[in-house]
């Protein structure tokens, strides 16, 4: 048994064993990965993966079971286990599966990696880093190509095949100048192909250059002040994740979202527009189907500060009597503003150019704090020096309400497109 037959077999078996509603997702992937560290390509891996995700509902009792065994006996046993699990679940009327949609087959990206070019790009990157940034010490570079074929079937007639191929690089490094050491810095980028040299992916060249300046660090000059922070694209991506968390299932089901019943209201700065675009051409990977079986569509999450859509699954939507999201949050894009980064830096009287925040999870009310990493102190519109032992305290809602400017430049990481964003009213504390 191979390919779609595996999913078809499981769906039929679940129904035969008593599932009133059933869903099967079978994913077959091959990852080829090269690793570079200590001046050498030291590891070459091939990972063959088969993952099967089963879901059954009987009398509103739901069960999910995941396995990576695809021989007929194991598949049958997995279906039986799913049915047994369902009987141990309590009934919940909000449990359901996606309705019938058009039968579709999607293709995106390359099926087979260019192995020689992966190796060439890897060695080329290390040579280029040594040449441009001699103080940089590469901890590890991973380049991987992943190709995944997935079959999604359910008992309502959903029948979708997706084929996705993309490359990812993951680079971890620091700078060393004698015994002076910078913090680790990193970049993760996706791409549909290997057309560009790695150093030109995302913001890699910039953060390598900035990290080289970060071997001599000191805290901000004052014990504590209220100032501006300029979030770099990678840092803004992390803050955006904190914001998006309040639009998802967990926060809504537990009534702890900061945006409960706020749909259609202006809840953040009018400068802020956020898209979640699973199938936009700008991105390396496409996400064609949600985990509960809906064919995805691009959507606007916030438009000029107004909350246009939550990112709720079918279950959370049913549970909380709200609308389901057209997707559940992926491939984020924040709209650019009209000021150049240079002008934005020039407009900061006192603050931080924040490349990375090593921070705690936000509290229930959105408060959070963290240590500024790989970041710089700004005074009177000038970048002064790289900092350490400097903490930032703010609130997720305050952060997105106190936006002073968004840059006209942006960075495409393959998985998200982010600009720079200047935010005011942030507590900055030094030593």
């Amino acid at each position, binding site marked *: 048994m191979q390919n779609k037959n595996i999913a078809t077999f499981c769906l039929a078996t679940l129904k035969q064993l008593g599932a009133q509603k059933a869903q099967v997702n079978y994913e077959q992937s091959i990852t080829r990965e090269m690793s570079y560290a200590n001046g050498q390509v030291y590891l070459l891996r091939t*990972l*063959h993966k088969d993952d099967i995700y089963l879901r059954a509902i009987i009398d509103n009792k739901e069960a999910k079971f*995941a396995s990576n065994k695809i021989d007929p006996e194991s598949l049958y046993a997995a279906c039986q286990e799913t049915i047994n699990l369902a009987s141990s679940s309590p009934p919940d009327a909000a449990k359901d599966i996606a309705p019938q949609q058009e039968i579709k087959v999607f293709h995106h990206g390359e099926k087979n990696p260019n192995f020689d070019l992966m190796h060439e790009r890897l060695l080329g990157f290390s040579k280029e880093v040594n040449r441009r940034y001699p103080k940089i010490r590469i901890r590890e570079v991973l380049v991987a190509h992943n190709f995944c074929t997935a079959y999604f079937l359910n008992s309502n007639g959903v029948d979708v095949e997706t084929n996705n191929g993309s490359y990812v690089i993951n680079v971890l490094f620091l700078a060393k100048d004698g015994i002076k050491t910078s913090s680790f810095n990193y970049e993760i980028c996706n791409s549909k192909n290997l057309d560009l040299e790695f150093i030109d992916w995302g913001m890699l060249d910039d953060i390598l250059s900035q990290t080289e300046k970060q071997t001599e660090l000191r805290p901000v000059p004052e014990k504590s002040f209220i100032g501006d922070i300029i979030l770099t694209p990678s840092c803004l991506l992390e803050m955006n994740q904190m914001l998006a968390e309040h639009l998802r299932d967990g926060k809504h089901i*537990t009534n702890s979202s900061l945006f409960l019943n706020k749909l259609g209201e202006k809840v953040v700065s009018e400068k802020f527009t956020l898209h979640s675009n699973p199938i936009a051409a700008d991105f390396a990977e496409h996400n064609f189907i949600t985990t509960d079986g809906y064919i995805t569509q691009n959507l606007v999450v916030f438009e000029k500060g107004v909350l246009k859509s939550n990112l709720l699954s079918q279950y959370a939507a049913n549970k909380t009597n709200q609308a389901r999201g057209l997707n559940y949050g992926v491939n984020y894009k924040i709209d650019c503003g009209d000021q150049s980064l240079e002008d934005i830096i020039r407009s900061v009287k006192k603050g931080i150019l924040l490349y990375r925040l090593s*921070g705690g999870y936000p509290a229930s009310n959105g408060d959070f704090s963290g240590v500024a990493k790989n970041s710089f102190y700004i005074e009177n519109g000038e970048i002064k020096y790289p900092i350490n*032992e400097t903490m930032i305290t703010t609130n997720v809602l305050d952060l997105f309400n106190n936006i002073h400017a968004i840059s006209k430049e942006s960075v495409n990481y393959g998985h998200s497109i982010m600009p720079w964003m200047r935010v005011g009213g942030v507590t900055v504390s030094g030593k």
Partner: protein
Amino acid sequence: MRYDISQFARHFNLYTELRFQENRVTSISCNDGTITTNTKSANSGVSARVGYKGRSGFSSSSVWADDTVAVIIKEAESHALFLGSKANVPEYNYFPKEFKIEKSFATTKRRYSQQEIVELVRDLDNYIVRNFPNLKGRSVMLVTLDMEKVLLTSTKSYAHTLTPRTVVSIVLRAEGKDGMISVGDRMGGLGQVEDVLDNPQTFYSKIDKLHQQLLDKKEAVYAKAGFADVILNADLAGILAHEAIGHTTEADLVMAGSVAGDYLNKKVASELVTLVDFAHEAFGEILPIPVYVDDEGVIASDTTIIEKGVLKNFMHNKESANHFGVAPTGNARAFSFSDEPLIRMRNTVILPGNDKLSEMIASIENGYYLMKRSNGQADATSEFMFGVPVGYEIKNGKIGRAIKDTTISGVAFDVLKTVTMVSDDFSCAGVSFCGKKQMMPTGMGGPAIKCKLNIGGK
């Protein structure tokens, strides 16, 4: 899980590690009385890592049919030859050692059905509802992970291990002065659910303490931002040991340039501080993450990282041991069958001292007693950040008001030099995952320590 691994030795042509592994997970969540998650999963497969001239080829598959196993060994071998042919490494020591070890922590009791496990979760939820009816919300989550591995190397190292873990996470929510507040705790550790949840009373008393912390937090104040005298309890001392010191002393990070590389045999902490990564036992007790053999086939040994304030050793795999000319320490661990072993900590702790916690609190005029941590991060400089969701002011030697969620930070090798008192008690928890490239269960803990560091606030 299959055990007849030896039949595949005939396919070994170069130095080879063959590993069958299955991770079995059960996850049950109860939110405000509703079971929202009831899932099981089993992730299993086989991997081969082949070494040639210090380079490695790796291949894995979830299919463990005989012919597939032969194919992945061959594929790993061809990858190793591809990289090794470009290498110029004169000698590489694979530290051959012949042994056979079997170690299982499976329960000897009757296994519970899924229905019975769901009822255990419901029981904890019912206890919360019965005793604390005025909460705004509550979550109980149980996650079990049974990690079973069979390893065979071409140098005749054989190990079959089963290490289970059961963790219960509880979150309580209430309306505070400025909106929703919450506290949470993770309980449990080594063992299957039948052994870990055999006495609900131990969980009830922890829930009672958690609720008291929630009540205290309703009136919580912001910590005063800046440098402060603090007492870190075992939970926070443990993450300081793991994140801020432990990671910098993993030999792969030392090779990448971590500051610890420049500190070997130098004083890096107060002489009250001794920090050890234990393999499986300490003070006559089995620790939460017992590792007897690592995934490169090395018998695991304890590593004393800091001894009376002096940095003494790093943690090694075979590659770093070759680089530094020392013996590997048995720290190479892989999370899934498809993961290559990396240098990972096991049970990283600060050893207890001679002070009483009450005396430590009494010694602080104006500071904080920090009791719980959420997440934590550190980097090559040993600068760290930990989220602190539960803590209290100390005023004139006495515990005062609760503080709001905050973050602490500092440079660990500086902070450890400020340690002036270490409590005489000790606990080690195994409820966390460490996320260095792969997820990995790790143990951490210690006594309470008194030190100075930076605290976030207003």
